[in-house]
Structure formats: structure tokens, C-alpha cells
């Protein structure tokens, strides 16, 4: 509960500081719309030549794009800026201040920066998802909606833990921003159903860079294609990665010695 309150406080300060730059909202909206337009136009070209992509119907792929924006927006809203903040503060030694605070430092580090305008990605993602679901005419059963929620949450934990592991590498190597860039370009592959990729690439997208669990699995839940085994697997992976990332964090903190400050 205290964590929720803290998250709220951090969120509020970000909102207040960003409201001074309101025109950034329109810039962000423009960029998101362009990005979304690109994705949908690409689909339009493809589906003018075929009526399914690896067994996925057009509206199912549109729903996938919605989930892709929703998940990507969530990452860029909170996870990515905070992790970049962590890397920066380790290099500059300002992590000292965080460590002296009486709360769990991993938690504080993980919510330190919020890029509120990325909410537009989330809102548009949800919009696209809603339109796709209506067009699919699937009456979303409570079971499917719950499956989506559970899969989405697992995906969130997986992505967060993965980013944290990568970011904590900065305790050993100073320049790790580049590794984050790899994740970003691999994440782009999640725009498409991972089932279309050749096996070696599908394997990488599932386990090396867990894009499959972040995007495809939640979308499958909505399309009613999710088996409980996959869901269980997603949660097992989420739990394992979360534990590992916590270990990485602890080991990193032990190694850390403030250079300046």
C-alpha cells in the first residue's frame, strides 16, 4: 500500500513538471499517430494481397498492434526512463542519495522517472485494441478478459525484470545504454505474431528478448487462443526473472561505490 502511495507521489511530481511543457503533448501525439498510421498502413498493404498472416486474421493482427502499443507505451512511460535514470545515476554517483532513503532502493529506482506523455501511446493502443475487438465481433468472455489481464501483468513483470537485469550491468560496465538499444530494435519484431518467424528467431524473441511474452501472449488471450499451459509458463518465467533481477540488483549494489557526491 505504501508502495502505491509512493508511486502516486512520483507520478504527480512528473505530471506537475511536464505540465510546464504542454506543447510536448502535441508533439508526442503527432509522433504516436504517425507511428500507429505506419503500422496500420503496413497491414493494409499486406492484407490487400492475402486474407491471413500465418493463420492470424486481419483484425486479429490489428488487435496485436493495439497490444504492441499498449505494452510499448507502458515500457516507455515508466520502465525505460527509470532504467536510463539508474544507469545515469550510477555513472554520476548520484545513486548515493537514493540509497540513503528509508525505502527499498530498487523500488525507488524503478519509479524515479515517469514520461507522462507516453500515456498517448497507451490510450491509442487501447483504442485500436477496442476497435479491433468490436470488428472481430468476439463477445469477450469474462474468462478471456481475465486471461488477458493475467497475461499482460506477467508480460509487464517479465519486461521490467529483463530491463532491470540489463540496466544493473552498469554496475560492472559503465556504458550499457547500447544494450538497451538492442532491446528496442528487437522489440519492433513484436509488431507481428511471433509464430510467423523461423524457429531460431522465434526462440530468441521468446527467451533471449522476451517480446513474445510481452505482446503476443496477451494478444492470444484476447483472441481466445491461449492455453493455460502457456499462461502458467509466462508466470513461471516472470517469477524466475523477477528473482534473478533482484539478485542482480543486490550484487550490483554491493559492488557500487559512489565515485563523487
Amino acid at each position, binding site marked *: 500500500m505504501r508502495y502505491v502511495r509512493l508511486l502516486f507521489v512520483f507520478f504527480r511530481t512528473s505530471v506537475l513538471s511536464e505540465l510546464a511543457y504542454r506543447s510536448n503533448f502535441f*508533439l508526442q501525439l*503527432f*509522433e504516436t499517430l*504517425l*507511428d500507429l*498510421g*505506419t503500422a496500420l*498502413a*503496413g497491414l493494409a*498493404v*499486406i492484407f*490487400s*494481397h*492475402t486474407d*491471413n*498472416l*500465418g493463420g492470424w486474421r486481419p483484425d486479429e493482427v490489428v488487435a496485436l498492434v493495439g497490444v504492441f502499443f499498449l505494452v510499448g507505451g507502458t515500457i516507455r512511460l515508466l520502465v525505460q526512463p527509470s532504467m536510463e535514470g539508474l544507469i545515469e545515476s550510477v555513472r554520476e554517483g548520484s545513486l548515493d542519495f537514493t540509497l540513503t532513503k528509508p525505502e527499498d532502493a530498487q523500488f525507488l529506482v524503478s519509479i524515479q522517472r515517469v514520461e507522462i506523455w507516453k500515456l498517448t501511446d497507451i490510450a491509442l493502443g487501447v483504442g485500436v485494441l477496442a476497435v479491433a475487438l468490436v470488428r472481430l465481433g468476439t463477445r469477450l468472455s469474462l474468462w478471456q478478459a481475465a486471461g488477458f489481464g493475467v497475461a499482460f501483468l506477467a508480460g509487464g513483470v517479465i519486461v521490467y525484470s529483463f530491463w532491470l537485469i540489463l540496466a544493473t550491468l552498469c554496475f560492472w560496465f559503465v*556504458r550499457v545504454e*547500447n*544494450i538497451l*538499444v*538492442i532491446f528496442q*530494435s*528487437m522489440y*519492433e*519484431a513484436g*509488431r*507481428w505474431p511471433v509464430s*510467423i*518467424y*523461423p524457429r531460431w*528467431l522465434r526462440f530468441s524473441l521468446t527467451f533471449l528478448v522476451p517480446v513474445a511474452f510481452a505482446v503476443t501472449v496477451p494478444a492470444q488471450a484476447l483472441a481466445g487462443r491461449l492455453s493455460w499451459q502457456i499462461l502458467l509458463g509466462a508466470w513461471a518465467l516472470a517469477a524466475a526473472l523477477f528473482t534473478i533481477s533482484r539478485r542482480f540488483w543486490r550484487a550490483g549494489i554491493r559492488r557500487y561505490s559512489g565515485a563523487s557526491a
Partner: protein
Amino acid sequence: MKGLVEIYVQQFKTTLASFVQYRAAIFIWMIGHVLEPLIFLVVWSVVAQSTGGSVGGFTGADFAAYFIVMMLVNHFTYTWIIYEFEYRIREGLLSFSLLRPLHPIHTDIVDNASSKLITLPMMLVAAVILAVVFRPAFHTVPWAIAAFIPSLLLAFILRFLIEWTLALAAFWTTRVSAVNQGYYVAALFLSGQVAPLSLFPHIIQVVAAILPFRWMIAFPVELLLGRLTPAQALTGLAAQTVWLAASLILLRGIWRAGVKVYSAVGG
């Protein structure tokens, strides 16, 4: 002329030195250049498979050839000047370049060409690996290979001039990232990076041919793959030349106007 050659050689050495320093960054940035065409390659192969083997005259193996060549041509003609220019103007760094007795574009040309000299072999390795995995089909003819070389060089120069001119938008606005993204999206579709242009609706093909996009990237690819007739190849080379002349004039005009409004703070 001799002076310019010496300057180019010196700049080449400088770029090489800075390259060694940032090799990890450059390697990682190349991953994106391989991954994007790879994704479209996979998507279109799947489409070809599901529609009984071929789409609009492309089989799975044809798509593999198209996107592997596209990857190389795109990388060869690639520039990062739009990001760089915004930074230069924002930080006032352009002031130093303006003091030099040489047009700043020369430094950028050498900078671009010399880093390509190093990244291109790596891209060729990536292309060979992709070729082994996806088994592309090449139906090219000798004359097309011969015409490919000038078309590739023209494409590089054309794209360089167009993007350099576009980068000058930073003189007037600080929101360059929006301009940049708009251009990037247009180029993605109109230069054949998402799909071969012949798979687009007719109207899009016309727009791509009137604007410089097709001539910057897609044209050399189509040419090398033997998808054009000799007449089409000649028309294409002519279109490239016309656009090149037009972009030179555009660049000069906009550069002059831009330098007039430029004022650096500090420096």
C-alpha cells in the same frame, strides 16, 4: 582540387579514429539495419506461402533476394545527418564549421563515406548469412549489374543531398524530430522498404516515382534484381540525374537562407 583531396584524406583519418572509439555503438546500430528488412522478409515470405507460392510476381525466394539487396542498398545510402544537424545547431557547434573556409557538407560526405567503408563489409557478412538461411533467387543479367553501379552511386548522392537539405529545417524549428519522423515514414513506404513498390496501389507507385523516394533506394534494388527493362533502367537513371540537379539547387538556396537566420548562443 588537390587541396580538397588532402582535406578528404585527413577527414577520413579522423573519422576512422572516432570509429574505433565507438565501435560497439556502431555495431549495435547495425543490428537494427539487419533486423528491419529481416522482419519484412519473413512477413512477405509467409504471405507468399499462404497465397499459393507467389504474390504479385514475387515468390518467397524472390522476396528474400529483394530484402537482402534492399538491406545493403539502404545501408549504403543511409545518412544520420538529420539527427546530427539538430544537435549542431542547438549546441552552437555549427559556428565552428562556418568559420572554416570549406562548406560543411564536405566534412559530412567524407564522414559518411568513410564509416560506410568499415560497416559495409560487416553488412556483407550479414547478407551472406541471411542468404544461407533464406535461400534467395537471383535472376539478374550482366547489363543490369553494370547499370546498378552508377544507379547506386547516384542514389547515395541524391539521398545525401535530400537529407542534408531536410536537416536544415533545424535552422527554423527546434522540433526536428517531428519533421524527421514524417520523412522517415514517407521513405519507409515510398522507397520500397516495407514492400516492393509494385505491390502497392497504382497511385502510391506514381507518387513514389514523382517524388525522389524511389530513386534514392528502391530503383537500384529493382535494377540489380533484373526486374526492369533497359528502357526503364535508362528512364530511372535520367530521373535520378534530374532529381540530383534539383536537390543541388534546393540545397544551395535553403542553406543560404538558413545561415542568415542562424545565431549561436555561446560557443
